[in-house]
């Protein structure tokens, strides 16, 4: 992989630090009036999700990490792995619980997601910002209650539990924001 100097650091750049693949979040250039300049860098360790803060002398460099985002199709879960397929090569990639994490809640078969590969294996997955999922179970809908009323919990077919308005019923398809886990609207079908 190529080496990147501090002045090429920008958010989104994937680099190796202490043997771990990291995503640069922030790069702040600091310099006293005269003398040594530094780069204060915030990086997310892509293996652990933890955020590191590290100060470099300006001009230092880091090796790039072989981390690439790919659009893939979610196929199925066999109880241990979640399987994703590259729609161009049809190659399948099993992702473990560490890579999928809480995002299992938003995975719908045949949907497109972004799979981050590190040295060819899934490191993380990113679902689309908005997904449409069916309500598997919720208290019966209150007819006519479409005003700004209260909410109730609903379990979706993926197992996610979210708050939805009172008027929704089991079997309806709703749009959810996967970043916040919030109900957005009924699916427009």
């Amino acid at each position, binding site marked *: 992989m190529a080496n990147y100097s501090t*002045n090429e650091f920008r958010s989104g750049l994937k680099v190796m*630090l202490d043997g771990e693949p990291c995503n640069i979040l922030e790069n*702040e*250039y*600091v*310099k*006293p*009036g*005269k*003398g*040594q*300049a*530094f780069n*204060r860098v915030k990086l997310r360790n892509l293996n652990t999700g933890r955020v*590191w*803060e*590290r*100060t*470099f*002398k*300006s*001009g*230092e460099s880091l090796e790039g990490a072989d981390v690439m985002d790919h659009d893939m199709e979610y196929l199925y879960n066999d109880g241990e792995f979640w399987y994703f397929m590259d729609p161009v090569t049809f190659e399948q990639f099993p992702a473990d619980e560490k890579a999928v994490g809480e995002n299992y809640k938003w995975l719908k078969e045949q949907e497109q997601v972004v799979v981050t590969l590190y040295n060819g294996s899934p490191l993380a997955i990113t679902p689309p910002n908005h997904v449409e999922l069916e309500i598997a179970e919720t208290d019966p809908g209150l007819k006519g209650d479409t005003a700004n009323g209260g909410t109730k919990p609903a379990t979706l077919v993926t197992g996610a539990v979210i708050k939805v308005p009172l008027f929704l019923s089991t079997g309806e398809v709703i749009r959810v924001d996967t970043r916040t886990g919030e109900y957005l609207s009924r699916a427009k079908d």
Partner: protein
Amino acid sequence: MSWQPSASLPALHQRAILYRLIRAFFAERDILELDVPLLSEYATVDPFINSIEATVMSHPHYLQTSPEFYLKRFLAAYPQDVYYLGKAFRDDEKGQRHSPEFTMLEWYRVGWDEQSLIEEVRQLLVLFFPDMPWCLMSYREVFQTYLSLDPHSATSDELRQCAYQYIETSFDSDDKNAWLDLLFTHCIEPKLPNGIVGIYDYPATQAALARVDVDSSGQQVAKRFEIYIDQIELANGYWELADPNEQERRFNQDQEYRALNQLPVLPYDQALVDALKEGQFPDCAGVALGIDRLLMCYLKKASIGEVISFR
């Protein structure tokens, strides 16, 4: 990239007004405005500043990183107060408060020392910040206040240990100045009081182009100062070094540092050494002030792009 200016129209008006006020300030004091070339055959030798190279008539030239050497050559020829208001260029400096092309105000006062010049910087800043608190501290005082360390007597090892309590670094160093700079930028600057803060009597090893003298405690210090506004570094000044042999020695020392650290070793400004040797370079104090940052502070903008016409 947007084709539109990066600064708002009101910010651009404020910049124009600021130029008028600054020129009036110097006109009142009968200080000559001097325009100097942006292109020079010489690069800076400061190991921490990178010159931008430009090829002119097939020969390497450099965009000036500061008008300092031209202003000093002028002073050696005509010992009188002088200022420059215009552009300077430094490669690789880009961030919220840095732009590779920026606007600098630099002025020299003949017969003055750094303390009287600090007072004049204050008078200029009062035009823009009439109600701002003002305080003056030595470099030693700020280290003692915020880190309980004496920066002059502390060893490289003590500074390293102190730095590791607060900062994770990717590097180690035997260079005491690297640790001083790290602690200053990471642990002191953010804690400086609000308002205008002047810091003086820098370590002798950070003299740059200031003369070295002893302070009241007998410590060797550089007659150099920095001015901060609300934790933002705004100006750097010196009681200027006038000794041509010492000037030449520092140039060579910087070149050695560059060679040792695999930095480009470029021709230093022999004309400046000649001017100090052969001209009538006066005792004087000089200061350089970042105009873009002054505008950022004045207009309360977080990014330098908001005060520059096009970024």
